[in-house]
């Protein structure tokens, strides 16, 4: 691609600075041997993949999307349909429509199923993206939310293929903590590469100033479509891994609650930077664990009191406060690498800009 050495170096730095601490964290959790902690870490890392996917589109384009969980759902169901053992398929899916009957005749290994699910998700994202990326602001929010509703309805009602409101069962449970680590490393590496190279940078330019972007020949719909497709495919990776992690799931697993969580994580961490996506997931996940403890066991000295629903309420409140007080989130929309760079060259007071 002819990327400059400096670009590759910055890519390696950003990827390393984000991935290495996560690996260390995963190893530490693993060493505790505590199953419940390992489970929490695994699901947090998988969730992080979805949030990185959300960031890849929304963070770089500045256009909100509520659809990333819908793509995670598409990927989870796709990978499930591909990987459920062939002998179980006739009893689980007795009424497959004629054009999908071929699905019952084979099954693929889980890694291949995940890859195929990601590719399929990317294809769907590309197709629905053609009209969707033309929307901005409120319209984009409503449009992507509508897509989530459509996918949810299809999954809930298309019994022959998705088992409808019954849970998907028989899905190979293969995702481990290490799979999650590999998944998030891939997601971060790809997302970092994208935003540092030409396509991503043009999308960021359109976020910064749409008119200026057009004035230097940037086609905003085309750049958004690239970012959207890539972001949704990354969310699909998270969704497929999640499916093979929990093994039994239904449409409600990937519903509004998860959408709210992922958006809250990105907003709190900082819309506009990959670091924000990673930090947001960690902060919200730790906070949510703490709140859930209160929810079920009460608060230390007052164990009699329980606060059902406090997790969502407090998260919503924090998101609101962040939006009002620090719209760029905890990270201020900056990458971890710029923090290091700024410390190296002590910034002098500069002239006021326009």
């Amino acid at each position, binding site marked *: 691609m*002819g990327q400059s050495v400096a670009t590759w170096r910055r890519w390696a730095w950003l990827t390393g600075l984000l991935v290495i601490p996560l690996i260390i964290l995963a190893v530490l959790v693993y060493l505790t041997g505590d199953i419940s902690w390992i489970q929490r870490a695994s699901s947090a890392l998988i969730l992080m993949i979805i949030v990185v996917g959300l960031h890849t589109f929304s963070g770089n384009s500045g256009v909100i999307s509520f659809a990333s969980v819908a793509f995670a759902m598409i990927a989870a169901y796709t990978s499930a349909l591909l990987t459920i053992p062939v002998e179980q398929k006739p009893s689980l899916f007795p009424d497959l429509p004629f054009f999908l009957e071929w699905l019952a005749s084979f099954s693929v290994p889980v890694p291949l199923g995940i890859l195929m699910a990601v590719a399929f998700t990317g294809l769907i994202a590309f197709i629905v993206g053609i009209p969707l990326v033309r929307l901005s602001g409120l319209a984009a929010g409503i449009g992507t939310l509508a897509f989530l509703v459509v996918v949810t309805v299809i999954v809930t009602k298309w019994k022959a293929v998705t088992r409808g409101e019954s849970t998907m069962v028989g899905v190979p449970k293969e995702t481990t903590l290490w799979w999650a680590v590999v998944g998030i490393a891939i997601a971060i590496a790809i997302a970092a590469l994208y935003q540092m190279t030409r396509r991503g940078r043009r999308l960021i330019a359109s976020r910064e100033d749409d008119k200026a972007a057009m004035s230097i020949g940037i086609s905003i719909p085309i750049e958004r479509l690239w970012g959207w497709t890539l972001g949704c495919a990354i969310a699909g990776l998270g969704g497929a891994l999640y499916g093979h992690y929990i093994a039994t799931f239904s449409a409600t697993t990937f519903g509004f609650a998860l959408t709210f969580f992922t958006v809250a994580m990105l907003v709190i961490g900082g819309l506009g930077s990959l670091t924000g996506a990673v930090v947001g997931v960690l902060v919200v996940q730790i906070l949510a664990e703490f709140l859930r403890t209160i929810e079920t066991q009460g608060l230390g000295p007052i164990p009699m009191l329980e606060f059902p629903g406090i997790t969502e309420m407090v998260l919503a409140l924090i998101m609101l406060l962040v939006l009002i007080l620090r719209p760029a989130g905890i990270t201020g929309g900056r990458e971890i690498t710029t923090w290091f760079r700024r410390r190296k060259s002590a910034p002098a007071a500069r*002239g006021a800009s326009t």
Partner: protein
Amino acid sequence: MMDRSSRAETLTTDGVCVYFEGVKAVDDISLSVQRNRIHGLIGPNGAGKSTLFNAVSGFVPLTAGRVSLGDADISGWSPTRISQHGVVRTFQDTRIFKALTVLENVELGAMDAGLHGNVGRAASLQVLELLRIDHLADEIAGNVALGDGRRVGIARAVATQPDFLMMDEPAAGLDEKETSELADSIKEIRDERQCGVLLVEHDMSVIFKICEEIHVMDSGRTIAVGTPDEIRTNAAVIEAYFGSGHS
């Protein structure tokens, strides 16, 4: 990105009109910019210069008339397509990408010329040198002073390798020294890049210093066209600028 092997020699408007709800912001303007020449577009506030400028660059739809690049009719094209074909504008309020570095801003321009990676970086550094802001390459663009910000905006446009560079009041808000240096830079850009320049400017010192042809507008219409010497002594221009009491 686009095939620019045959560079257009002229950028022309034929009877261009832009009306906003009955207000004739631009009314029947015909002007022609040649490559390798610097054309000034002047007029009092509200004369319609900016609207014409926006119409030519595709940001405002034409009510009537035609904009041509060489033989091609580019009326109604999107701003993206117009800039991809070599007509590139700057903005009075710079509209530089504030969160990116100065060099990254210019590299984004170079991408429009199909220059990426190392090649794009080298080309961008050359443009920064041409505009004498290469020392700011790694600064965050939002942190540079107004005068430098204007130069970043111009550098970004120059990096696209335009055939026609349209500048919207590049000297607005600059002091005398900055203004004079900017005028020199515009001339250097034209000389080195061999592009045509359409310059909207309030500051007459810039216009008379570097323009080879000047187009004067008032209330949406053309009131004079000519060389700087002709315009300086044109009665209609003096009237428009200073009112009858001063002439």
